[in-house]
């Protein structure tokens, strides 16, 4: 008798598994969300926040955020938002590629798990291109500069490209003064290049071409830089080897990573001893967006609004570069900002990836 029961149970399980595989595809897309977004969008700007708060209360006061902010940033940011609006935030953290993949997978299955997304430029562009985002029209946009506004997402913070070096190993006389300097023979064997920095490669290339260099000169410079350096993976990993004195200089790291290591007492910097860097600092926007069909659209709207207003102050506290002007922000001091070429980068990314990869491997690109 017992055996038969077990048999039935096993059979039942098998049937469940098999039918489960071929089951119909449920479309749980939340059309209610679009209604909420529209309801907030059509109100006068000074009434939007109050309405969003009211609706967020009805949604259950929760928010699901997908972000590539590191945990030491995402946690205090989520906490500050919770304190302001009493909305509980559950955070999915992953690197930007993972955030994109997960949001796309869920979106294509009609089961979005995120309400709001905060991640890198390229991934936000991809989400937007796949029709995953809903435009925002709140008053918070007034503070953001034109270059930080995109069709359905907005820059929330900036990652600034600069070289970084260990001050015990690179003395003031040997500090780099320009991107061109990285090609100097004195840096032979001292330079590290990150294998995914094709956006930096593209920005510097474009800058050089726009400022009078010929393609041949640019190619020669890159070849010399690549010959000076070694490849490494991961900006934070690189910084750890730089602080340990294992490497001397990084061709590019994000200034906030250098600043945070420096604040912990490590002998690293991205500013010369004079305190002013003349190296064009490209600032790549990271952005925030609201997900179409979200479970908690009003909470997503509030988070979007908050991250561009009060949230900016939190980012400054965490030594990040905010996308709006915030009193007390010192993250751009001593830097010479240069425009980040949004258009080229978002239109032809694959080719830059391939060219940069070929440069690091020391091979010629096809059709270059």
């Amino acid at each position, binding site marked *: 008798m017992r*055996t038969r029961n077990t*048999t039935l149970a*096993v*059979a039942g399980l*098998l049937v*469940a*598994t*098999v039918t*489960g*595989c071929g*089951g*119909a595809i449920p479309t749980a897309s939340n059309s209610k969300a679009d209604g909420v977004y529209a309801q907030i969008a059509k109100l006068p700007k000074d009434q939007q926040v109050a309405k969003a708060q009211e609706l967020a209360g009805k949604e259950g006061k929760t928010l*699901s955020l997908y972000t590539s902010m*590191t*945990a*030491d940033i995402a*946690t205090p940011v989520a906490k500050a938002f919770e304190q302001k609006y009493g909305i509980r935030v*559950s*955070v*999915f953290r*992953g*690197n930007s*590629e*993972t955030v*994109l*993949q997960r949001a796309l*997978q869920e979106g294509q*299955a009609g*089961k979005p*798990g995120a309400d709001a997304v905060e991640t890198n430029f390229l*991934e936000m562009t*991809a989400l937007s291109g796949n029709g995953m985002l809903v435009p925002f029209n709140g008053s918070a946009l007034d503070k953001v500069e034109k270059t930080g506004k995109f069709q359905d997402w907005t820059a929330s913070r900036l990652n600034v490209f600069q070289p970084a070096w260990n001050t015990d190993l690179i003395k003031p006389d040997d500090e780099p003064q320009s991107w061109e300097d990285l090609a100097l023979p004195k840096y032979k064997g001292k330079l590290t290049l990150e*294998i995914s920095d*094709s956006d930096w490669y593209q920005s510097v290339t474009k800058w050089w071409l726009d400022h009078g260099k010929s393609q041949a000169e640019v190619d020669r410079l890159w070849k010399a830089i690549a010959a000076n350096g*070694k*490849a*490494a*993976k991961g900006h*934070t*990993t690189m*910084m*750890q080897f730089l*602080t*340990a*004195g*294992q490497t001397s200089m990084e061709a590019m790291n994000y200034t906030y*990573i250098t600043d945070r*290591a420096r604040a*912990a*007492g490590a002998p690293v910097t991205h500013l010369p001893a004079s305190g002013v860097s003349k190296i064009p600092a490209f600032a790549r926007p990271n952005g925030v967006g609201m997900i179409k069909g979200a479970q908690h659209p009003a909470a997503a709207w509030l988070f979007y609004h908050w991250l561009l207003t009060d949230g900016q102050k939190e980012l400054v506290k965490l030594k990040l570069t905010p996308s709006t002007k915030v009193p007390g922000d010192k993250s751009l001091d001593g830097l010479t900002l240069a425009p980040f070429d949004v258009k080229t980068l978002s239109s032809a*990314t*694959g080719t830059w*990836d391939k060219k940069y990869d070929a440069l*690091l*491997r*020391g*091979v*010629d*690109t*096809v059709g270059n």
Partner: protein
Amino acid sequence: MRIVRSLLSFQGLLVGGAVVIVGYLAIVPLGYLIHDTFLSSDGTGVSFGAFSRAYGGNAQAGDMLLNSMWFALGSAALALVLGTTLAYVQVRTDTPFKGLFFAASLVPLIVPGILYATSWIFLGDPSTGILNSLVFEPLFGATPINIYSVWGMIWVQGLHLAPVAFLLMVAAFRAMDPSLEESAAMSGANRLTVLRRVTVPLLRPAMISAALLMFVQSLESFEVPGLLGLQNGIYVFTSRIYFVLRAYPVDYGAAGAYAIGLLLIAAAGVLLSSWLQRSSRNFQTVTGKAFRPRPVELGRARPFVGVAVILYFLITVVLPVAVLVYASLLKYYAAPSRKALSSMTLDNYRAVLDMPLAFTAPKNSLLLGVGAATAVMVLTAVVSWVVLRTKAPGRRLLDLLAFTPIVIPGLVLGLALSFVYLRMPLPIYGTLLILLISYCTRYLPYGMRYSSAAMAQMSPELEESAHVSGASWFQTFRRVLLPLMSSGILAGWVYILVVSFRELSSTILLYSPGKEVLSVLIWEQFENGQFTTLAALGVLMVLLLVLLVSIAYRLGARFGLQGDSAN
């Protein structure tokens, strides 16, 4: 009618169920991979464009293949020699310091690859590594160690993998009747001849299994090639996969083409290994005769072996763990100096214990680790029986199929699972269950190798006599086969438990907020750039898992598993 009845019998359902589950687990990611690789860009026909994108043009496919093979073969060979020697010394000799083997066999496995490789960078960097600057430079005036070479990669990977061989070989040595060796010795063969002509041939199934596993695992691993190889432009398959998966738009086709390249190599390995094991009767050492292994007396060699054991322990366990402990006491990593030593603090441990997830993450990891290890070992014990003991059609294919997940890149596995379970009306996506499914899939090949190595050593006469005595199939399986395989099964169980604590590449896509596991926590610290906090976390993880595994072995001993004392 009889066929239907026999299929519906308990045995039929159990075996059929296990086969279906294993097949299902393996086919989902494989199907996804093949679909993405061969689908033409317009989405209608079959195309091989992905292969030309992956291997053609300036991809340096030849170099990549050579580097990969050299690295994987070297690491597998090193690990096999180390693991087998250690297992032999541990099980079959009266060596001193037996307790150290336990740690030496586990710690390199527990320490996450990224930490293990980083520790070796701090030890073996050609200019600033501790070994060069504190040992070789003052003593010999030279800095011979360069960790950023293929040899350095093989060294680190080989040490990291040696526990896989060790665990498998210990199980094999325990299940081996030493009377064959004794008869050889009685007939006048010297020790070396016995080893060469009797011991090693008898261990062939386990050795082949171990070599295959480690070879493919090295092909598929990224931490060591990523941290050590890139420095000098040593690219392997996985560095290329990493590259295509992180670019946008992601070229899944090219990633799939690389994975299929790996799959072909792995399939060749599986076929070769089953061909090598074709005359399997020769290896069956567990027969109806009782035996009791007697340790070989080392005699005058004993102190030398003792020194060698201590040396091995120092190199694989003490050195890397000491680097971790040292780093975990610093604010940021710096080479040892008076300044660094004076700034030591326990802040990193405090930071780890203060993390909001300090308790849920280990709990979830434990649940998943135990769950995946148990499920995989039960499934593979049944499936290896089907593969090795029956003449069922397609059993070779089943063996091959169960091996395929090993080459599927973790991210692709994650995408395949989320694709399937987002569309399934069962509450699996967004729960721990999807992680369990992912871990079961990933570690299926390992479980399969451990189980079939154990099964291959067993003579069918034991089952036959149980059957003749009136035992049902299930009784025979449960009362005869499983206990006799228990050494191998426990080894596989321990292996899966330990490595599932490290799994990140599919976890990172599939975990849900509130359901974090330890590897996610480790990844977060890594991303934060908190190497020193990460080191503290690594040290705590080593302690936790060593404790867990000791408990597992204690329990195993209670349930009749031969313990060290029996040898």
